[in-house]
């Protein structure tokens, strides 16, 4: 590398001391993190540019570069990528990098690495060679001892990995979080931020970042680091791997080997895993021709809501983030609406009476009866299906001679049951065939025996379109 501008190893951000694989990524980072207008989110190119923009457009003054470490907040310094960095700071960084690499060489470098995802480390510097295993390296804890740090530290590192579900990215991170003393050489991404964030930490800190780069830099082209959300995700990350346990009995050993392809056990990846709810809310997937997107599929067929939007970085829960479509009707078991019309798009009221569902919303309509009982239970409540139970034992009327079989006792002709008539064994019973189930003669059929009063004048079965509110909320069965 002959360019004097380039830091001895890799491009790094002067504002927050983070390392990057590539200057292009560095610039993207700066634009998104440091040169972004907090009012309109427009990304400028330099600090002064941002200041001018805010003044002219929003009539506001900016006193410092956003997200910069103390000491590096000067908004007047025109820094773009690696250009414009004061020589003094360059040298200081070089020094700390060297220091750090020495440290890391001395200390054990084994388990550090970030699992997989370890980007090839072209580092001249030593250290961090192997991807940090991301195990909380206890050894290093000592130096740092900043309990508070980890969380912060982790954040910056997280984003890149977090996104697009790059499994490799994350792995190291979570473990890091647990107070991994930044000093760890090869401390995965987490470390880096620390270095940046906590000047106090310094001693070994500055040295660390350099090591970070490998971890940090996600694949080029990813809008990495830029995403603050990652920070949020961080904390939960640890949970993810931890949740892995798979400690369960050997019961389903095969299941445990499931993701044999993922390099490390904890290929954490993106967002809030631990939470079961969210775990399920992965992108709907099952895309139809369109929506191929990146790895994450997304866009389930016919999901108008998700089809749109879902930019990869946030693609993790398209299914459930869409307020429209499903989730709307999803407030399951809330909403009241004492029966009344069901399907017909009633304005889903509220009240919240258990045992009913919200069946409709502005954008979607759940074709299901209001009560939160299964379709079979509902159907079984119909008078026409209840008259039979009491007659258990007798060849119930409907089982006409035709049907060769009959109830529990296999008395009859255990023989070729098939008779031409087989087709209509039931007939007499129900009177009217399927259509117009009117005549049900409820006649107070004792329900299936348990209690649910059931009964009431049901007339007009389901087909009648559920008119009668009478759908007897009563009981199951």
């Amino acid at each position, binding site marked *: 590398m002959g360019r004097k501008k380039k830091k001895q190893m890799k491009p790094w951000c002067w504002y927050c001391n983070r390392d990057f694989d590539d200057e292009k990524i560095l610039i993207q980072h700066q634009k998104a993190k440091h040169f972004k207008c907090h009012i309109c989110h427009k990304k400028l190119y330099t600090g002064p540019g941002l200041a001018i923009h805010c003044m002219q457009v929003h009539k506001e003054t900016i006193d410092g570069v956003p997200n910069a470490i103390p000491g590096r907040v000067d908004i007047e310094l025109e820094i773009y990528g690696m250009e414009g960095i004061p020589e003094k700071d360059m040298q200081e960084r070089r020094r700390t990098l060297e220091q750090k690499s020495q440290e890391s060489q001395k200390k054990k470098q084994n388990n550090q690495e970030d699992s997989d995802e370890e980007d090839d480390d072209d580092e001249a510097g030593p250290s961090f060679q192997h991807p940090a295993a991301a195990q909380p390296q206890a050894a290093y804890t000592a130096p740092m001892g900043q309990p508070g740090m980890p969380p912060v530290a982790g954040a910056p590192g997280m984003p890149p990995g977090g996104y697009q579900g790059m499994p490799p990215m994350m792995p190291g991170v979570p473990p890091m979080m647990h107070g991994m003393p930044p000093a760890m050489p090869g401390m995965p991404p987490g470390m880096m931020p620390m270095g940046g964030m906590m000047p106090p930490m310094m001693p070994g800190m500055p040295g660390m970042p350099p090591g970070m780069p490998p971890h940090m830099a996600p694949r080029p082209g990813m809008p990495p680091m830029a995403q603050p959300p990652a920070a949020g995700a961080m904390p939960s990350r640890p949970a993810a791997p931890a949740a892995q346990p798979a400690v369960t009995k050997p019961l389903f050993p095969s299941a445990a080997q499931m*993701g044999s392809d993922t390099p490390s056990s904890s*290929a954490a*990846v993106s967002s809030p895993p631990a939470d079961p709810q969210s775990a399920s*809310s992965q992108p709907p997937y099952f895309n139809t021709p369109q929506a191929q997107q990146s790895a994450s599929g997304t866009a389930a067929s016919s999901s108008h809501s998700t089809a749109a939007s879902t930019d990869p970085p946030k693609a993790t829960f398209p299914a459930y983030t869409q307020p429209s479509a499903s989730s709307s009707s999803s407030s399951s078991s809330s909403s009241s609406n004492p029966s009344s019309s069901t399907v017909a798009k009633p304005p889903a009221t509220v009240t919240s009476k258990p045992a009913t569902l919200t069946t409709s919303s502005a954008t979607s309509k759940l074709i299901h009866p209001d009560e939160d009982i299964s379709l079979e239970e509902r159907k079984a409540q119909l008078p026409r299906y209840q008259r039979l139970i009491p007659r258990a034992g007798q060849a119930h009327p409907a089982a006409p001679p035709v049907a060769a079989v009959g109830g529990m006792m296999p008395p009859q002709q255990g023989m070729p049951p098939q008779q031409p008539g087989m087709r209509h064994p039931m007939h007499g019973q129900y009177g009217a065939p399927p259509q117009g189930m009117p005549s049900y003669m409820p006649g107070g059929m004792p329900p299936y025996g348990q209690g649910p009063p059931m009964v009431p004048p049901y007339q007009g079965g389901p087909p009648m379109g559920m008119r009668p509110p009478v759908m007897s909320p009563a009981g199951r069965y």
Partner: protein
Amino acid sequence: MSLFGTSAGFGTGGTGVFGSTTTDSHNPMKDVEVTSPPDDSISCLAFSPPTMPGNFLIGGSWANDVRCWEVQDNGQTVPKAQQMHTGPVLDVCWSDDGSKVFTASCDKTAKMWDLNSNQAMQIAQHDGPIKSIHWIKAPNYSCIMTGSWDKTLKFWDTRSPNPMMSLQMPERCYCADVVYPMAVVATAERGLIVYQLENQPSEFRRIDSPLKHQHRCVAIFKDKQNKPTGFALGSIEGRVAIHYINPPNPAKDNFTFKCHRSNGTNTATPQDIYAVNAISFHPVHGTLATVGSDGRFSFWDKDARTKLKTSEQLDQPITACCFNNNGNIFAYASSYDWSKVRVRLYSLLCAERDKNTLSEINKTTS
């Protein structure tokens, strides 16, 4: 093994008088319609296991009967036999050797139907309708597992009137599936419990539901080593969750997808969301089929996370489905369940899906 005497009872399998003109929405896929279908909605279907030659299809219906058809290679179906309960039949299953069929009914009993002798005897009793029935064949025991709306899961040795074991569930059983050594039961109030069946059945884990709506159907899938590794769970809200029991990365491996919804691309009209009535996995390819109250069935590839195919819309909801033991035949039942106002014919259709076609479907992401 020839079953019971053949019969010529071929009645017309209920063709639909149909309002629609050109497209026969009663059988838009031009699949083979089974002869002598039951007279009321079909609640469950089951094909015979590979231990028996030929394909025999069992269907239980709300007309209290269980019917058996032989499905021939040319797709023609021959009604073979039937048995009755005193209440609607909710679930059926075969024994592993194909000699017995077990049936579960709203009359709170389950029966074992010996096909050779065409006799059926009661083998189980619950305090409420029995919603699911499965045969368990373990190295050291065999039994029937019944899940009921009385909130219990019972295991029966068919020779004794008392259950071998009875497990309490938090809520009514809505659906279940068994692939030894794993069993999954989904209950009301979105309960989800996994049981392990080695040595003796015991509760393995209660899982927080990945779905936000009432559970409706569940099917276990296997991994490449043919061991059960997870399940697909369907809800009334047109959504299926794929859930692995011990994935290396739950957040990434488990996911849900939407299905059985009316065309929602036009945001002006609200999207109609239908219940997923049944899920069935192809025994060879591992792809899954879902059928819903919207009257369609779809095939999906859960590993590639893509939809393979969706059928045309039938005029009635599809209430049950099943693959035969080698995956060449897919049977689905179209019948009134609740949502369709028009109550009409209850018919059973069989779709020939030979292996080539299916793998072709697998390749194309429709």
